[in-house]
């Protein structure tokens, strides 16, 4: 019998496994575990230097035209998931967990390491304001945040965003800014007083990207390759998992799709199927940690209870995509030495929305230029000219809203085994962001509500809230503050299913710290017994 069984190898599962192994417990991790086919050699050096020298079809489009899967597709995938090298991340999702969705664009992963293989690298601590409605506080997570910061290697700094992003302990220096972000940030520094009156704060993000070498991993080389291949300076939980497996700190069993469990007085049976043979398989453990993602963890729970009626809440951050033009950069050469994921963060204490919003600002240098061609309004040839002369003067921003700003989506299990998700449309009132645009104009960056794109519900992939943590859970499908599922003795929820709220902040880092906190509690309970 295993002491602990963890289901899933995404950020939450790996963080829980790390805590168990740090405390001398060797967990069994059950996972479908789709792996990357390592058939293409990595490209060395800068993206644009490579493109100038070689046919980049295999790198950018893919032999099976993977990059073009969004053309004419009514449900386009997030751009990062269409890169040819990450096809394995979402492979077989519809086979292993079919979803009938209305008004929701669900994205799932059955890969080793989960969706974090293609994450946007932002790792933020929830502070006490963010944790309103949670049955624990920032202080309860602090030691786990610190451990993870050392394990991962996070860059950032003490600036105007520190009150929102928390402790700067163990952070590496921030990444260097490219041309447009540097211009915007300089202007913000000059007009700080006005910005503060408006509740507008700009600063460096907290990203799991090395700015200095760490544990044999090199620092960021500003090669613009972030979308196109795995880079050793961008952390993914897979790195920790591989280390734990190599050091025999965990037992990793891939090829298992967990479907349900049943409890006995002396332990718990976890039941699933072997993905290669479709034969049933089961494992026995003392404790079960579910970390299969908010959608699939909920599915396992509903299937165990054979419940085909209950509709669980499913949260996601409503999001806007906003392009900005910096007119003074018009005609500037393209910055080919840049980092193409989040490079600046915005915090807006928004009066019109009566809440705090977070924006992640990106340089548009890593994507294909063709990705923007279809979004420009001019004739084809004129659009090409704009790609050359206007695009290097642009920044992109994703503006995240708290899930509470609109009605949540719902999730249920159908008798045919499919998940049904009823989504809610993105109903953000664009007239309320005019003030934000006015302020950006003061900083030399122009945009207009007509250029804003509402991200379809589910696209943000910040799923949460299906099995919320409560101070005193009173009904089925709720958990106690340490993740124990109501009515169960040995089943714990360690992923974002347990988040009762979703503030406008990327949840990955807090989810990992919370998984460690839950693992810590489970160890204490095991020791007491």
């Amino acid at each position, binding site marked *: 019998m295993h002491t602990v069984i963890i289901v899933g190898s995404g950020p939450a599962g790996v963080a829980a496994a790390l805590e168990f192994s740090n405390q001398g417990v060797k967990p069994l991790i059950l996972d479908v575990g789709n792996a990357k086919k390592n058939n293409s050699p990595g490209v060395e050096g800068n993206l644009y230097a490579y493109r100038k020298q070689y046919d980049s079809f295999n790198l*950018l489009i893919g032999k099976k035209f993977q990059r073009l899967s969004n053309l004419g597709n009514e449900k386009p995938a997030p751009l990062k998931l269409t890169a040819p090298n990450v096809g394995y991340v979402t492979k077989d999702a519809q086979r292993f967990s079919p979803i009938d969705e209305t008004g929701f664009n669900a994205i799932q992963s059955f890969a080793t390491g989960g969706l974090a293989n293609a994450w946007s690298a932002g790792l933020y601590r929830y502070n006490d304001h963010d944790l309103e409605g949670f049955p624990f506080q920032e202080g309860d997570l602090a030691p786990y945040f610190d451990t993870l910061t050392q394990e991962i290697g996070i860059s950032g700094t003490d600036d105007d965003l520190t009150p929102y992003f928390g402790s700067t302990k163990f952070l590496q220096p921030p990444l260097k800014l490219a041309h447009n972000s540097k211009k915007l940030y300089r202007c913000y520094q000059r007009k700080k007083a006005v910005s503060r009156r408006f509740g507008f704060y700009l600063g460096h993000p907290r990203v799991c990207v090395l700015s200095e070498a760490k544990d044999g991993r090199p620092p960021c080389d500003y090669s613009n390759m972030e979308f196109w291949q795995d880079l050793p300076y961008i952390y993914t939980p897979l790195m920790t998992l591989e280390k734990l497996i190599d050091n025999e700190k965990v037992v990793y069993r891939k090829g298992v799709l967990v479907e349900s469990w049943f409890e006995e007085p002396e332990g718990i049976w976890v039941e699933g199927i072997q993905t290669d043979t479709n034969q049933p398989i089961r494992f026995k453990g003392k404790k079960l940690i579910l970390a299969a993602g908010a959608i699939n963890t909920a599915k396992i729970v509903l299937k165990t209870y054979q419940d085909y009626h209950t509709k669980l809440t499913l949260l996601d951050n409503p999001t806007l995509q906003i392009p900005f033009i910096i007119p003074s950069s018009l*005609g500037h050469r393209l910055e080919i030495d840049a980092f193409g994921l989040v490079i600046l963060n915005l915090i807006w204490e928004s009066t019109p929305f009566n809440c705090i919003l977070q924006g992640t600002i990106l340089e548009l240098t890593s994507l294909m230029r063709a990705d923007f061609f279809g979004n420009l309004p001019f004739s084809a040839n004129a659009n090409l000219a704009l790609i050359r*002369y206007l695009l290097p003067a642009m920044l992109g921003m994703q503006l995240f809203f708290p899930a509470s700003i609109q009605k949540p989506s719902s999730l249920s299990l159908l008798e045919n085994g499919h998940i049904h998700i009823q989504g809610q449309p993105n109903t953000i009132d664009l007239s309320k962001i005019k003030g934000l645009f006015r302020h950006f104009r003061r900083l030399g960056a122009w945009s207009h509500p007509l250029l804003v794109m509402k991200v379809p519900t589910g696209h943000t992939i910040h799923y949460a809230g299906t099995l919320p943590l409560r101070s005193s859970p009173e009904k089925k499908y709720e958990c106690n503050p340490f993740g124990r599922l109501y009515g169960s003795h040995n089943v714990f929820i360690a992923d974002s299913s347990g988040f009762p709220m979703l503030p406008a902040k990327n949840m990955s880092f807090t989810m990992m710290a919370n998984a460690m906190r839950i693992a810590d509690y489970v160890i204490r309970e095991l020791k007491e017994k």
Partner: protein
Amino acid sequence: MDTRKFAPNLRTLQEIEADKIYRSLFYQSTPDVIRERFIEASVQLHQKISTKERALYYGVIKTVDDLEALEVACRYRKKMPLLTLKFRLMVFLAETLPENQRFFVNERTSFIRGACFTAVSLLRTIYKLCRGFYLLTRLHACIR
């Protein structure tokens, strides 16, 4: 317009299509590798339309020389979305060739050059839109 007179096989039509779109974008003849990739990648786009729609589409492609004008007009009138998709497809494919980098990447900073190109782009679009709307009225029976 009677499209039945356009009988050549699909492959020939696709080659004509690739050449016209590439020339509209880059004023050059299509490199063989791009033509092949374009034809191969078109398969998945064609799955979304009926055989009749495809025949009408190729009839139009064969007749019209100024595809840039037709495309921008179709985009604004929300007609024949396949043509817009084919332009986007061609841009994706063309961007992967080293010799095309100059069309996508500006290597020299010049505000005046940038401002001029942006202004010319606007004027060009207005001209192409007018021309495209005229083409649409001529071809209204084939384009929906």
